[in-house]
């Protein structure tokens, strides 16, 4: 994080599910915490999400999923990110994520996971800490 550039976060709901209360509320909270939000909305394909992430030069991609199809949908987005060579952009996953899938998502390469009812402050702090720890690692090299 350098200078006055705000943290830019893309938020999208991939797949067919249309429930977007969580995505919108988190978007509002991140905005209030000083971040810039690129909100793509629902019914997005992996291609649309990755394309927007490149165009908007975001620091994070956040996916909101409630239907239970998060493993498959996340895999699609990660594949597309690798294909377009933006797999260094950290991926965040939020929504109805049962405990048993958290480790699976982490192993797939998801950096931060916010299951439903994660307090907003926890999510905001996690994003900020992730960036500053990565900045420290980079300067340390």
């Amino acid at each position, binding site marked *: 994080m350098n200078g006055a550039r705000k943290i830019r976060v893309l938020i999208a709901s991939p797949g067919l599910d*249309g429930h977007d209360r969580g995505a919108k509320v988190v978007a509002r909270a991140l905005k209030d915490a000083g971040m810039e939000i690129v909100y793509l909305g629902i019914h997005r394909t992996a291609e649309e999400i990755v394309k927007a992430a490149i165009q908007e030069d975001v620091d994070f991609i956040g996916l909101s999923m409630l239907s239970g199809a998060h493993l498959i949908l996340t895999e699609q987005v990660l594949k597309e990110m690798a294909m377009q060579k933006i797999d260094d952009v950290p991926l965040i996953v939020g929504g109805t994520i049962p405990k048993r899938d958290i480790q699976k998502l982490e192993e797939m390469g998801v950096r931060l996971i916010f299951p439903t009812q994660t307090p907003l402050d926890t999510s905001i702090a996690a994003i900020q800490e992730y960036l500053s720890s990565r900045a420290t690692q980079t300067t340390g090299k």
Partner: protein
Amino acid sequence: MERRKEGGKRFTESGIEVKPLYAHKDIKDLDPVRDIGEPGEYPYTRGIHKTMHRDRLWTMRQYSGFGTPKDSNQRYKYLLEQGQTGLSVALDLPTQMGLDPDDPMSLGEVGRVGVSINTLKDMETLFDGLPLDNITTSFTINATAAMLLAMYLCVAEKQGVPFEKVGGTIQNDILKEYVARGAWIYPPEFSMRLIVDTIEYCAKYVPRFNSISIAGAHFKDAGCTSVQEAAFTLADAIEYIRAVLERGIGIDDFAPRLSFFFYTHNNFFEEVAKYRAMRKIWARCMREKFNAKNPRSWLFRFGVVCGGSTLMPQQAEINTIRVSYQALASVLGGVQSMFTCAFDEPFSIPTEENARLALRIQQALAFETGVVDTPDPLGGSYYVESLTKEMEDRVEDLIERIESRGGMVKSIKEGFIQREIVEEAYKKEKRIRSGESVVVGVNRFTIDQEVEELRLHEYNPQVAMEQIELLNQTRRTRDKERAERRIDQLRTAAENNENLMPHLIDAFKDYASLGEVCQAFKEEYGTFEQPTVI
């Protein structure tokens, strides 16, 4: 979650101040006949029937469906054995969005949040051994409601049940999809036309079927207040009525089959007052604004769901308690049909045992507590009557505001409704964050353990392969040319502004798939791009 305190003052969830005490002076301006009346009499504040639940319990209708039609058929039979009194079909997202299971967008979703229905074959299996003149079925289906109704009627015909004997409900409420639930396909104009087609068709040929269930539930679960939920829903209803009247159908020919659907959340008395107030507003609106003459057109008939976004993953068992209170509020509010969520629903669709426990909430209420013994037992309460009046005034004001903006369709296209809801959802979240709103087990009375590991419903990934295989089989065995001709017939009927229902029935009888039918309309009418509002 919804009980608010600010500087010694107290408020309902909609922000109505609650006084330290209510007494006679708080209801002295209410006219006992004009404002309250008797159960079964205009303006129906106290209920739509004279004796209410004493003689006629609400329908116990647990929203249910998953996997293949066979899986769901078994679950329905199980729930009926356990004493459920009506069916409520949950459909998977591809079915809700008009996609076949082999569509790339269907990946991972086939049979996941509901049952997968692609052709008439599936619908036949879903109701195998369930005679349609013996049971009423509610379908939570919107963008593809006309199509699912057509398939259901095909099943009735195959079972030898005349259409006049088929009872049930399709949600068929697209306007709230654009705002709060997201399962839309077409632009509002074509969507509205499909809805008017179903309402017209049912009024003529399927008179016992509720051709629409105008839903506030999804607004509410997206985060709005109960005043907003009521006002947005009634404003939607007004839009639908206008569209049907424009087709030249008389108000009393279809109004008796309009029904409603809401969430009952935690703020107990406000939820009771919400239903009492809506009955009154609706009766007046139908009689005075739309000049309905048939008293059946004045009746505000509604179903509810209890749970939804009030269900928490932390100490999940608490959810059963929350849902029980919500169910009680619904009964005291005069409900006609009810779905009580299971406590494991913050994680997934319920297991069989948890679905059974959820049904038992309603049975205990109906058969053990005595709350059904006399209608509207809270009628005459200083607080409830005063709150009912306050809800009525606020809801009517908000409907007025929406109407003066040009109605719901316009307000939705402009993103006004979406903005109102997200604003309220965010405020709620902030109140939980600050501790101003208490959520037991979440921000108070927490226990030192992570979300518990429950045995959850397992999604069977084989379902997609099975459904694709079955669809391919149907495609191979049907008369291909006939099915294609039926799709052309649909296109022509659409262009000629004919009612599409008979043509949909023809198409499904010849085993056209849901995806093929919906695709044909997409080519003609396009899809809808939402205004993104955060």
